[in-house]
């Protein structure tokens, strides 16, 4: 089956990353397809490139990026992302900021990409803030 996942919570502010990552790995292990992971609301903070993992704790950002390397699209809501400070190199130039902050393997996309993923998949699963 084809799945769309949505992550609504920031790291450390909810378990949404842990749930989303563990379910994504289990889905791939059972040969399902994940069309897109959509980061919405405070979920956009998952894509911040500047996060430093505390000693002895899980590196959730690397785990997302591994999923990305396995072909899962990591899509960050562009409106929600840029207002919270998650910007790509392109947005950095447009808004004349000093640095970009979107981690590798993530892309900024419009809300239409959430709806089209939902339209093209069999299941939509949301992990709240």
């Amino acid at each position, binding site marked *: 089956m084809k799945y769309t996942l949505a992550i*609504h919570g920031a790291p450390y502010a*909810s378990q949404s990353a842990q749930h989303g990552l563990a379910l994504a790995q289990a889905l791939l292990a059972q040969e399902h397809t994940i069309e897109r992971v959509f980061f919405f*609301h405070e979920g956009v903070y998952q894509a911040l490139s500047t996060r430093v993992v505390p000693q002895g704790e899980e590196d959730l950002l690397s785990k997302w990026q591994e999923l990305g390397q396995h072909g899962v699209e990591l899509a960050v809501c562009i409106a929600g992302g840029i207002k919270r400070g998650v910007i790509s190199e392109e947005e950095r130039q447009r808004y004349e900021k000093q640095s970009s902050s979107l981690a590798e393997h993530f892309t900024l996309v419009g809300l239409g990409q*959430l*709806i*089209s993923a*939902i339209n093209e998949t069999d299941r939509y699963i949301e*992990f709240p803030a």
Partner: protein
Amino acid sequence: MKKMLFVISNTPYANTHNAELLEAAMVGAVFDGIVSILFRDDGVYSLLPDQHGELIGQKTISKMLSALPTYEVERLFACADSITKRALTITSSPEVVALSLAEQTRLIAEQDVVIGAQL
């Protein structure tokens, strides 16, 4: 096209989730989804008339609601029980249909997707 229910269960101004969900609902309609919105529990505070989000630099939810029919989002529902418990007099425009809990059960069961898990 898919039947999509957006659920608003939280107060409107503590965070911007309600505004973001309403934007997603509009996009759903633009993409020809069969879009409904359900206001339940603290989400019914979104239906009070005469809000002024601009006073704290936020979008005004009551104004966003008025714009929904323009986007052909016309299936608006609210939990009757949640409104009664909070003793609210809600806005009359756009039209919002009050539902019993049993009617909400049917509304949810008939969807292809339900969007809007909220804190």
